[in-house]
């Protein structure tokens, strides 16, 4: 089973986000990028499938700051092959462009299964998985939280609201958007990642020009405005707790 996992780096939402002077994009000067958490789950799911049924796992990531760490961490978790797509990704590209860049590499690798995160926090033009499936004319299913592979066939657990699960049979090769791996992404020690930096190789593939057609033009970006900003309770823990007890009484639960 030849499994490819596509990952991208996204803004770390724990950090303060600011808009750049153009007013139409995030200010990248202070932006800290981290792996899209759903892609992290896709990596875990791919490695679980390999451990369970054998196979070969390739992780592909576009070249932005932090990409090597993401790839070597994937190797430390069990990925067999690491590929960095080079191109002008630093200023940010939309998902249509990214999916086309991924498609060129995926086509070359001839996978049985492509996994990627179901969404990312900076998506404005759809998500990478189904866009890639469109480019490669492969079937796509998303919101997946479990996969079974048997005799070249796949059965995926697709999540719906309220905890309902649909069992979906998908002909391979296929692209799946991972909501959550069957177990939390595994922890790897920094020493093991460092070891991978010495022993693993990162291959490079140049993106053949980035075509962003299909995404919308953004005229203005702004911080979310509060519809009804919360009444903020101030003071030390004791004082805030006292105010909260008063509110609980007022609301009739005490």
């Amino acid at each position: 089973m030849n499994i490819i996992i596509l990952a991208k780096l996204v803004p770390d939402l724990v950090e303060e986000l600011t808009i750049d002077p153009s007013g139409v994009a995030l200010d990248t000067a202070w932006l800290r990028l981290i792996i899209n958490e759903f892609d992290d789950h896709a990596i875990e799911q791919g490695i679980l499938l390999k451990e369970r049924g054998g196979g070969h796992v390739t992780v592909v990531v576009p070249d932005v700051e932090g990409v090597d760490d993401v790839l070597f961490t994937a190797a430390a978790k069990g990925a067999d092959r690491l590929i960095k797509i080079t191109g002008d990704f630093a200023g940010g590209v939309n998902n249509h462009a990214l999916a086309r860049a991924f498609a060129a590499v995926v086509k070359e690798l001839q996978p049985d299964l492509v996994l990627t995160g179901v969404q990312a926090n900076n998506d404005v033009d759809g998500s990478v998985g189904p866009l890639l499936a469109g480019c490669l004319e492969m079937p796509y299913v998303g919101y997946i939280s479990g996969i079974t592979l048997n005799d070249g066939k796949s059965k995926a657990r697709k999540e719906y609201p309220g905890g309902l699960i649909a069992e979906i049979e998908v002909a391979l090769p296929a692209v799946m958007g991972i909501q959550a791996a069957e177990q939390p992404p595994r922890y790897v020690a920094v020493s093991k990642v460092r070891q991978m930096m010495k022993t693993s190789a990162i291959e490079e593939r140049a993106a053949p020009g980035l075509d962003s057609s299909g995404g919308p033009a953004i005229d203005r970006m702004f911080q979310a405005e509060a519809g009804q900003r919360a009444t903020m309770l101030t003071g030390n823990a004791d004082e805030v707790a006292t105010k909260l007890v008063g509110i609980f009484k007022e609301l009739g639960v005490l």
Partner: protein
Amino acid sequence: MNQDIYVIVEHLRGQVAEISYLMLAGARELAKSSGGSVVAVLLGHNAQGLAGNLAADKVLSLEHPALAEFTSDAYQKALAGLIGKDQPRAVIFGSTSIGTDIASTLSVRLGLPLVSSCRTFSPDGKFVSQICGGKIMAEGVLPSPTALVTMVPGGYKPEQGQSAQSPAVTQADVPALESLRVTLAGYIDPEAGDVDIAKEPVLVSVGRGIQNQDNIVLAEELAAALGGVVSGSRPVIDQGWLATSRLVGKSGKHVKPKIYLALGISGAPEHAEAITDSDAIIAINTDPAAPIFNIAKYGAEMDIFELIEVLTAQVKAAKGG
């Protein structure tokens, strides 16, 4: 080409999903700028009964046994034909397990632009999308001539997309749906949990800020003192710290307690959409920019571990008194 706004109605096991009504409300706003009609597109098998209260000018019904329940391959094939032929001004999908499976693929397949996570439309044809966990909004003019859109909850109320009058239903052509590569094997209902969090009057809900499983007990003590139970956001459930039956959010339960006490929950859109019917949301978070403060009634910018035990003690004392 026409100026109509098409809404792809979402339904699951015979129930219209709430997002469908929100999309119809958004479509009505958008139709003001296009001058077209609002058209509900209903794919299904013997599903015309679902059209009853849709606030649409008309319903296009695509009937086929392969469309009885949602699968991405059949829906995509059926819609590619319809959208390609009619070329409406916009086609709105839910930013959901159904809509996102097909909107992006159709964008590539039909060569049509796609705007995702759209929250509102303005009467002059602009969209506002939310990104970065609801912290940032992106505004632009809806691309021409035909735009595909996925829509998130938050901008409209379901009542705005409902009507007492049944719209007229017209049959639309369905292509041969053969050699499908995605098929539904069946549904698995959620396991009955120890408690139904949708019915609890008080929820003490924990997010990533709870840090590890050992700390869950702190929330449980507070919940017990308040006569409620503990629930959690997605990261907590994915870590296995709480059972899936305690998940609040897009793929978990929608809840409406008297008090929703959010401890260390940022309030990402997937979580926020499931708690807005609560009587009072109270949020404790160290990040002053956390979107949860935009929907909470009360908030405190503080470390939950400074507060939680003090609060439990005070609640117990208040009950004792």
